[in-house]
């Protein structure tokens, strides 16, 4: 079955290493104009007047668009992926620093920027809500007064689990742990910023948009709903994308402005944001203020987990997740453990910050859930003076418990957790690391060993439960075998570096006995591919990978019927081997896929019910999510004088089910581990008390380089998903989800001699030093 799987160099690399990638900013069209966005300097202010006359008089300016211009077309506001609405260009107020206020279209990039300086906006500054914990205070400024009848900043309350039963467990628990934790606001910061080129053809009425999007089909449908253009006249092209990580799922105001700019000027319009615009205004991640509680027996048996969360969604509720899950998949906060009860309550609030929350390879907030429970488990180990590995081993789900229904209703598909943890410990040399640590502590050196065990929930999802704005999360594929036996596969999902052109060809190849080189994978163009919701939440392999295997099997069965006609035998008498059907008991009597493909296109009389040609389609509606998991161990050394953390080793054992291309899987894990080090130690979008964003460039928003990252040490176990046709589970976000708690647990473990129990990320030298002094900081706000 897995013929064609295995390490295989990537097809797409041939163009990338030659500098022939084709990204949105590489799109150049005749007569193309350039757009730039004027942004608010205030986090919260009423707009009194906008004077665009001077900008319009600039000799190279072709159009200046304001919220008023858009309102005439009913486009001043657009729906968000969470069913809220977001200002495309502000008309009444600005609600975060960096919000879009006006859009200039000019003959070149620089002139467009120049003209922004000529726009005069009169603001009346208003008090800003900067601290999410103050958002619900009586008297807090009402941010969304555009919503009729709104008197406060609460967006939603959502809960899961059983409050009563959880309370009962806590009431008689021998040990309880309580800890407030912040998962700070971070940003996916793909190296390519967001942008679009819009080309509206007045004659044909066709709108073509090259976009940095992870979800071209969803965008096309939204443009049709919002802009009133017929959907068949909209083509969204997602060419090569310079990293997404969830940042490129939403529709951004700049895209809409480029479209309107093209309609108004009759010329193609390009808009590419700069780095500051990307960091300050596009979809951030996390910003979860969590209070976690854990109930346990004194022998270390974990009995219940309870969480209350304050979720900062910024000025517009623009999170991207299935509609029924306002807190994403945070409901998997019970982790990898068998509990008696669990309960969680999440309150979402508006603040005067950029909108977003679900991004950065978070698997719809599994990241926050894993961080919470893995920190709590480490605190329990500290409390009971148990080894954290031993404590986890005692509480992990056992293989015979799968499929396992968690206390919050998630059905984990398969796993052998103890085996995976044991392998990670063996690779790390866990016992000798502890011995080394003991010796180092005796001499005053700070060495820490941290671990995390995570279970992911990916592959959204069963369409009955999961949709985005009413669009069910099922994805289509189309497979066609050409007369000469090579193939083209059209998929709805879209690569931002994950290697779909290689991996998906390998799936077809393995099912049909072709060479992956003979399978062309087409993606990222709504005119050329079937509908589907796109690539995020690690869903490409779980959803479209399954669809691809199924469509190939459909083609294989059709080929069987054609072969039966060719060989003049009953189809039931045919057997499949790699790339050919043959007569059972007479292996010489067979036909290869290439022979069958040609016959399917020929004048051969085909069996009843078999149309000519050799192709098939499939829409895959996943029966369940898939649940990849893993065990990570991080070893750090901390300088007690400066608080600097060095990650010495990082051991990661991932179980993502069957691996189609292990080289690509390992690459995905490597990248996520670097993300984890970044989030744990360096990255935060903080604000000052006035609401100024303090993470608006790469000089302030720090990302890990080659010097902060160790040589990763990987291992694998393979527990196939029972409901996925090839047993694969998805891996794109596993390491980003699993690694931050391992790093933080390692640092806190290193600081044990100082009695440090917790400090919020990022564990910068300043934060670690303050923790050593017993005064860790709030990292989301600058000290005033």
């Amino acid at each position, binding site marked *: 079955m897995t013929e064609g799987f295995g390490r295989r*160099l*990537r097809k*797409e*690399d*041939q*163009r*990338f*290493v*030659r*500098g*022939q*990638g084709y*990204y949105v*900013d*590489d799109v*150049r069209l005749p007569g193309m104009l350039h757009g730039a966005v004027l942004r608010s300097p205030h986090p919260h202010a009423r707009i009194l007047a906008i004077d665009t006359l001077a900008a319009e008089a600039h000799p190279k300016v072709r159009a200046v668009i304001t919220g008023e211009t858009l309102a005439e077309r009913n486009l001043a506001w657009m729906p968000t992926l969470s069913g809220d609405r977001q200002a495309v260009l502000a008309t009444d107020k600005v609600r975060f620093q960096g919000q879009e206020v006006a859009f200039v279209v000019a003959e070149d*990039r*620089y002139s467009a920027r120049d003209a922004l300086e000529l726009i005069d906006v009169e603001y009346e500054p208003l008090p800003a809500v900067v601290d999410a914990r103050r958002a619900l205070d009586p008297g807090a400024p009402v941010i969304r007064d555009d919503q009729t009848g709104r008197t406060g900043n609460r967006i939603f309350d959502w809960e899961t689990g059983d409050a009563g039963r959880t309370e009962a467990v806590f009431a008689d628990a021998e040990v309880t742990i309580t800890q407030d934790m912040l998962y700070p606001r971070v940003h996916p*910061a*793909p*190296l*390519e*910023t967001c942008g679009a080129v819009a080309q509206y053809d007045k004659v044909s009425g066709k709108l073509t948009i090259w976009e940095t999007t992870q979800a071209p089909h969803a965008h096309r449908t939204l443009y049709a709903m919002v802009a009133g253009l017929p959907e068949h006249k909209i083509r969204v092209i997602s060419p*090569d*994308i*310079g*990293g997404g*990580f969830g940042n490129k799922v939403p529709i951004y105001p700049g895209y809409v402005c480029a479209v309107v700019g093209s309609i108004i000027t009759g010329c193609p319009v390009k808009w590419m944001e*700069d*780095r*500051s615009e990307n960091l300050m205004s596009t979809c951030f991640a996390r910003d979860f203020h969590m209070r976690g509680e854990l109930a346990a027996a004194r022998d270390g048996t974990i009995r219940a987990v309870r969480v209350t969360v304050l979720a900062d969604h910024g000025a517009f509720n623009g999170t991207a997740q299935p509609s029924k899950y306002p807190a994403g998949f945070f409901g998997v906060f019970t982790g990898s453990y068998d509990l008696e009860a669990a309960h969680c309550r999440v309150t979402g609030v508006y603040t005067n910050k950029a909108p977003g929350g679900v991004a950065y390879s978070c698997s719809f907030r599994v990241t926050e859930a894993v961080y919470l429970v893995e920190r709590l488990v480490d605190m329990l180990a500290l409390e009971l003076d148990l080894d954290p590995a031993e404590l986890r081993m005692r509480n992990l789900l056992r293989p015979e418990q799968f499929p396992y229904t968690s206390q919050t209703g998630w059905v984990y598909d398969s796993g052998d957790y103890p085996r995976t943890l044991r392998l990670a410990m063996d690779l790390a040399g866990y016992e000798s690391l502890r011995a080394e640590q003991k010796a180092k502590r005796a001499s005053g050196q700070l060495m820490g060993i941290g671990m995390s065990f995570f279970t992911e929930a990916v592959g959204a999802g069963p369409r009955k439960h999961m949709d985005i704005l009413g669009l069910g999360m099922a994805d289509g594929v189309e497979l066609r075998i050409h007369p000469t036996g090579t193939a083209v596969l059209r998929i709805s999902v879209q690569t*931002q*570096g*994950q*290697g779909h052109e290689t991996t998906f060809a390998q799936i077809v190849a393995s099912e049909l006995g072709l060479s992956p080189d003979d399978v062309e994978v087409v993606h990222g163009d709504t005119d050329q591919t079937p509908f589907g919701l796109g690539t995020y939440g690690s869903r490409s392999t779980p959803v479209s990978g399954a669809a691809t295997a199924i469509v190939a099997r459909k083609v294989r069965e059709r080929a069987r019927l054609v072969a039966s006609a060719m060989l003049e035998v009953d189809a039931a008498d045919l057997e499949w081997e790699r790339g050919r059907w043959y007569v059972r008991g007479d292996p010489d009597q067979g036909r290869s896929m290439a022979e069958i493909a040609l016959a399917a296109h020929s004048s051969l009389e085909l069996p009843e019910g078999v149309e000519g040609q050799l192709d098939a389609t499939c829409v895959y509606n996943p029966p369940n999510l898939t649940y990849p998991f893993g065990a990570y161990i991080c070893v750090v050394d901390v300088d007690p004088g400066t608080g600097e953390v060095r990650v010495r080793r990082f051991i990661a054992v991932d179980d993502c089910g069957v691996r189609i291309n292990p*080289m*690509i899987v*390992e*690459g*995905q894990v*490597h*990248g*996520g*581990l*670097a*993300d984890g080090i970044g989030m744990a130690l360096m990255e935060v979008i903080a604000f000052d008390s006035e609401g100024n964003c303090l993470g608006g*460039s*790469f*000089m302030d928003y720090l*990302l890990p*380089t*080659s*010097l902060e*990252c160790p*040589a*990763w040490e990987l291992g694998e176990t393979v527990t196939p998903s029972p409901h996925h046709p090839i047993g694969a589970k998805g891996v794109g976000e596993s390491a980003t989800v699993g690694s931050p708690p391992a790093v933080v647990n390692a640092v806190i473990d290193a600081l044990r001699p100082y009695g440090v129990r917790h400090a919020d990320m990022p564990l910068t030298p300043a934060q670690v030093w303050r923790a050593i002094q017993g005064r860790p900081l709030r990292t989301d706000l600058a000290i005033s």
Partner: protein
Amino acid sequence: MTIRVAVTVNGTEYARDVEPRLLLIHFIRDELGLTGSHWGCDTSNCGSCVVWLDAKPVKSCTLLAAMADGRTLRTVEGLEQDGRLDPVQQGFIECHGLQCGFCTPGMMMTARWLLDHHPDPDEAQIREAISGQICRCTGYENIVRSIRWAAEHPRENR
């Protein structure tokens, strides 16, 4: 007002009349149409824009095109020679040194320079050499391996 900027890029001479404030990266991409070099941050932090100026890697997002006048540039498009990939390019393919491909041209230009000056670099030297550049996909490990691969497979008759 425009000024004339004449440069040799990958062995080809170009001259363009441009605004004095034009950044080198925009000159290379928008004026010369060589879009293999990328623009990622504006602040010299990410290195997507690394090209060679007179045989040295520079961050072209913080140089003016005017500063390259009369000088020689080499970009990713100049790595492949006589239809043969540079060992660095081949190394990135062999060792999965790239995913989205956006940082790759800049990384490879730095790698080529490193290998020209240190043909047999160890891991620490490689990490140091690329430490001024950001990759968001690979966690750097496979970039290090790619450059080591190139070191171990030098092109004959370079």
